[in-house]
């Protein structure tokens, strides 16, 4: 095959790289400032530039932030895992049914789910608050798990619907002829052949629930407070101690950062699928 002739010249590469590097600095600058500040003593924070390297590194801001955030971080982990499992499982069975079966009112179900993605939560917060209180779930991990599981269903269902749609129908028809019911097919064919899709949705849901503030603020209390709420409260009480706040931010970001480094491919796939779904 003939090579495309117009490859950009050396000069343009230099320009491309310079612009990209400039933007990379713009995107990374806040993190750099947070990182250096988080390992400085309070005295150094007051007298040095936040961008300068620390002269004497201290981890005590992390110790202090961790003391404040230990329980909320554990709460967040439980809420996130519970809410993620609930929404992924319920979304998956909805997505499967919508992708592979025609049933009564299937289009209506699809419409109800799509509209759910666009719901501004402010329009249901009061009834949600009342429901959770009536169920005696206010300030409990279970209350937050339930909330996240439910409001995660629309996005998960539509993402799974897209992924399951790629499985050839003939596979399913053959299995049906062999006398398998829909849920046997789900377990034996659909789930094993879409492992990557499942991981994608799991990573996507994990980060969105972990990062969330509003529900935690309204349904969480002293016992069940997630780390997002706790970090925000810390800001109110320790306004002067920026090193502790930055250490706290980094602690809160850590699980997502690790996930991004280790499974970034899946998270990016999730963002793409989510983007297509949401529009």
């Amino acid at each position, binding site marked *: 095959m003939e090579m495309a002739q117009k490859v950009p010249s050396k000069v343009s590469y230099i320009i491309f790289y310079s612009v990209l590097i400039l933007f990379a600095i*713009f995107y990374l600058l806040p993190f750099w400032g947070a990182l250096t500040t988080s390992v400085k003593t309070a005295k150094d924070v007051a007298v040095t530039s*936040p961008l300068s390297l620390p002269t004497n590194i201290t981890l005590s801001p992390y110790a202090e932030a961790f003391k404040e955030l230990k329980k909320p971080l554990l709460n967040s982990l439980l809420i996130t895992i519970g809410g993620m499992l609930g929404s992924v499982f319920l979304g998956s069975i909805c997505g499967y049914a919508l992708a592979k079966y025609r049933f009564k009112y299937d289009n209506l*179900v699809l419409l109800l789910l799509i509209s759910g993605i666009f719901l501004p939560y*402010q329009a*249901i917060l009061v009834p*949600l608050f009342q429901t959770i209180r009536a169920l005696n779930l206010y300030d409990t991990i279970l209350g937050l798990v339930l909330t996240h599981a*439910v409001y995660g269903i629309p996005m998960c269902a539509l993402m799974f619907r897209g992924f399951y749609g790629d499985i050839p129908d003939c596979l399913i028809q053959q299995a049906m002829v062999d006398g398998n019911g*829909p849920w046997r097919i789900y377990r034996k064919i659909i789930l094993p052949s879409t492992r990557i899709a499942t991981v994608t949705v799991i990573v996507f849901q994990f980060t969105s629930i972990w990062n969330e503030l509003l529900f935690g603020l309204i349904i969480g209390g002293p016992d069940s407070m997630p780390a997002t709420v706790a970090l925000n409260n810390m800001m109110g009480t320790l306004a002067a101690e920026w090193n502790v706040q930055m250490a706290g931010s980094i602690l809160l970001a850590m699980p997502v950062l690790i996930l991004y480094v280790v499974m970034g491919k899946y998270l990016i796939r999730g963002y793409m699928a989510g983007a297509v779904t949401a529009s």
Partner: protein
Amino acid sequence: MREFFKRHPLIILVIPIGLILYFVYFCIGWNVWVSVSDWKGLTPSYRFNGFYAYTKLFTDSTFWLSLRNTLLLFAIIPICIVLGLLLAILMDQEGLKGSNIFRNLFLLPFTLSFVVTGTIWAWMYNPTNGIINSLFRSIGLNSLAGTWHTSQETVMLSIMIALIWQFSGYVALIFLAGIKSVSQDQINAAKLDGASNLRIYRRLIIPQLKAPLTTAIVILAMYALRSFDFIWVLTGGGPGYASHTLPILMYKETFQATNFSIGAAIGNVLLMIVLVLVIPFTYRTYRR
């Protein structure tokens, strides 16, 4: 039971669909009811009170300020789109090494919680020795060192800059995927015809990016309308009322001032905006 389940296997869908019907649709109806009730204070009260909450809201200047700020956030949409498209095109250049690294770096802010980025930007903008002002002072641009999110005049601008920082990498990702899906044959054919790189983007690639463009607009608009977390962490709606958006106002009216009927009314206003702006836009683009 077993027999029934065998005959109607999809009956299990009753659970997720029932949850959605209750927690989304029934709750919307309930919220409308709250908004026309006289519920004030912590004890629920559902006596019909007409449009009291709405009249009260529409005659409150804080409401109009919050609405204006909410719509003002839409201004980040075109900026994120231009910036995202520029970055996507740069990363798409043939033979450019490390474009994945750039993509991952640009996307990093989007992966993090608004609570993390809000806290970090509070430090960025800190007027006394925050990151931005220290940077300006160290390169001798003292005049650019500002009061950022702590003054009424610049608070919305500060919020918008930070949100552009957080979202533009995501928009770049959406556009990059769109560019990559343009057929390589078409691009090669145009190259053989001697079309310049710039011309290929302008005439061939960008016109094919309608779907990613719609996606980006819808997602950014939804974030703008639901803008609570970031603003709550950075400014709490202040100084004064200067950075109140509708979600912030709703939270304060409902869960701090316990004006439940007014809070519910604000929620309904947001829902109406979504119904009027976002859904027809999505529908029109996808019907074609």
